[in-house]
């Protein structure tokens, strides 16, 4: 099943906490239930996106790794 991504955020190269800060700002621009895809290279983001998803209630739908790039798909609450 392919996910219908509403928006992609490129946070590659950014360090903590900017991938989370930019995701929080970007997710506000998509409708509730919409999906946002975030690309990051910060290894700490793996734990951080899971924690952020639990704190905010925005569901972490998918998480993949491809050659040092972490990809997160989140559904807006």
């Amino acid at each position, binding site marked *: 099943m392919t996910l219908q991504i509403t928006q992609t955020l490129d946070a590659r*190269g*950014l*360090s*903590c*906490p*900017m991938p*989370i*800060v930019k*995701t*929080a*700002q970007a997710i506000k621009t998509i409708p509730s239930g919409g999906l946002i895809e975030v690309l990051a290279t910060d290894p700490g983001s793996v734990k951080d996106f899971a924690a*952020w998803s639990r*704190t*905010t*209630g925005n569901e972490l739908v998918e998480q993949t790794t491809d050659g040092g790039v972490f990809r997160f798909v989140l559904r807006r609450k």
Partner: protein
Amino acid sequence: MTTPTLERPITPVADPIATAVADVDGWPEAASETVAEAPAKTKELVIVDWSGDLDKIWPVLILSSTAAASGVRCRVFVTFWGLLPFVKDEKRIVGENWMQKMLTLMQRPGIDHLKLSKMNFLGMGPWMMGTLRKQYNVASPRELLEAATALGVEFIPCQMTMDMFGLKREDLIDEMGEPAGAATAIEIMTEADASLFI
């Protein structure tokens, strides 16, 4: 064959007191109304920003902006040395008397002129920190402050420190809230889910 009439519920009750009460008052009826669930309270974080050092204001700004990004209400009570980084860029020497002026003469205010709490080495330390920051693409205090205010972090300057340092409201960045005192700090800290002194 006749079915015996039930005088009490079939489910055995382990609690002898409940059985005794039921014998006198009868068994309680099931609650007719379901209690409405209270909406979840927004989590709150309060940080007391006391230090104006680069290596301390950095975590203040990282944690406050991340809290706001996580839907946590974040208020930062800015006191003592913590106030100097919040002085407007165009201000250089602030204060009314010579002692107050000496403070900002010795320690240049503003978010771009921060010293390290250790290994400052006359500015060599912060310069190296800035170089490493760029090399590893870490957000600067200025970028983090912009993100924090954009995300709704509330910065509350301490009135007493402002008076003592000779700082006027217009000396501080516009994004700061109304000045307040210790009682406000205590109130917001005791109401918050977590509070930090940095």
